[in-house]
């Protein structure tokens, strides 16, 4: 279980952070049972509070039935974590890494509901390559059940007809070096109910059919790709990832919601080193561009330089201190900043995080 504190010098980020916020906590419990050497079941209960997100609503994070036929083929069914990039599956496991926040360009904590797990099936395995290392693969397909109670009042329904994807990692002959790529295709279907006043206005000027009552059915296909490289030797970790996300909106009535097609660009470089059994410093640079075709303006990007100190106080209790220098407002939300446009928010700001975790 974890409890954190978040404070920004300017702008609210993730929570009401300008004033300092303790709305940064999570609790997870998991159970795993092996029935045979090849058959296993597991589940995890999780609850969190991050600003306006979570509010300690408990959820079944993942649950699965796993049968491993051979090293090169296993199957898993249920709600399983999405293998996207190097660290998506451990995004909410504070004890498994040095930074408090993984690089948000590739692992946005606010998108956890969409990126964490899918309900469906997955094939996985590891294939030795006779002197050329080994290949680890994972391929999955299913859907994501979303809690829409906190959605905007104009969204009548939000479903995910499909999510499919996979990850391929080459464990190279150089021990500790792995290179890989992940791809994920997901579609969100929304029923959008436009405000009545807008409908009336558009119908009066002839832009909208007179018999339109709504809702407007919108499809939002998204394609996420990431290339990854990681090198671990002893207690040193070096990692880098580059990602592009292509998000479309496809609307049958352009005057209400126009089609869009946006490609965002994301990446980071990260390192950490366990200098002593009780101390691990870490450092990363992360960058995010909202739209590769529009890179100028403070709200178009987010640069993030972060430094962390992890203190392992005992075998089951740790403390982390992390500071960020942020340049840009691309990762900020207007709704958390008095609905001010993000291009008017402070371009240079700092973020301080403190977090303690007990784990067993």
């Amino acid at each position, binding site marked *: 279980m974890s409890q954190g504190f978040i404070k920004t010098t300017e702008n609210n980020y993730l929570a009401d952070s300008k004033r300092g916020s303790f709305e940064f906590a999570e609790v997870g419990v998991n159970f795993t049972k092996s029935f045979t050497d090849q058959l*296993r079941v597991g589940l*995890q209960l999780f609850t969190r509070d991050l600003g306006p997100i979570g509010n300690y609503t408990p959820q079944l994070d993942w649950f699965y039935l796993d049968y491993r036929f051979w*090293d090169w083929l296993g199957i898993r069914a249920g709600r399983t974590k999405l293998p996207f990039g190097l660290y998506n599956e451990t995004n909410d496991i504070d004890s498994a890494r040095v930074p408090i926040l993984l690089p948000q360009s590739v692992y946005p904590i606010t998108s956890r509901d969409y990126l964490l797990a899918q309900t469906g099936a997955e094939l996985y395995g590891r294939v030795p390559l006779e002197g050329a290392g080994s290949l680890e693969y994972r391929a999955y397909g299913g859907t994501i059940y979303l809690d829409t109670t906190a959605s905007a009042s104009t969204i009548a329904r939000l479903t995910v007809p499909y999510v499919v994807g996979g990850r391929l990692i080459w464990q190279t002959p150089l021990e500790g070096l792995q290179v890989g790529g992940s791809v994920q295709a997901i579609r969100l279907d929304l029923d959008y109910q436009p405000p009545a006043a807008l409908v009336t206005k558009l119908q009066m000027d002839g832009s909208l059919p007179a018999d339109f009552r709504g809702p407007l059915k919108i499809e939002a296909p998204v394609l996420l790709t990431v290339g990854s490289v990681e090198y*671990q*030797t002893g207690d040193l970790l070096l990692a880098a990832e580059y990602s592009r996300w292509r998000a479309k909106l496809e609307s049958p009535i352009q005057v209400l919601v126009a089609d869009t097609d946006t490609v965002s660009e994301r990446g980071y470089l990260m390192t950490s080193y366990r200098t002593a059994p009780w101390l691990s410093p870490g450092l990363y640079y992360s960058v995010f561009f909202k739209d590769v075709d529009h890179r100028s303006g403070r709200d178009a990007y987010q640069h993030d330089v972060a430094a962390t100190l992890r203190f392992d106080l005992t075998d089951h209790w740790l403390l982390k201190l992390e500071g960020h220098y942020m340049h840009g407002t691309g990762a900020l939300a207007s709704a958390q900043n008095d609905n001010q446009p993000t291009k008017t928010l402070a371009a240079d700001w700092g973020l301080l995080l403190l977090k303690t975790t007990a784990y067993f």
Partner: protein
Amino acid sequence: MLALGALAWLTALGSFPGASAVAGETEFRVIVDPDNSTTSAPRELLAEAFLKTSTRWPDGELIRPVDQRPESTARKGFSQSVLKRSVGAIRSYWQQRIFSGRDVPPPELDSDDAIVRYVSEHRGAVGYVSASTRSGRTKVVTVK
């Protein structure tokens, strides 16, 4: 003098024949169950076994790795020599695996004698003990 210098350099790299065996004699020995046909095993295979990325011996028998407690001297030596990572780094590895639902770590036992008992009683088992421990019915395996 040149030969002595080369010898020192090769030993430091761990590439001098027998360097691994010397490390094993002073820190730990790897043991397998008495019915296991393996007499020597590549370090990489043992690493894969204890990280559970490989689950079968070359003869197809299921591998059953067993660990010692993190504070054990034998574990520290095994972790550095075979897994090439500290016990703390391996702990983080298992935290990731456990909380992503991927797998669970090998069982941890309290003593060398407990390891010997477990390995002798479980087909396919592999463990490590202090170099001075009697291996009982188990078989000592050379790490290549």
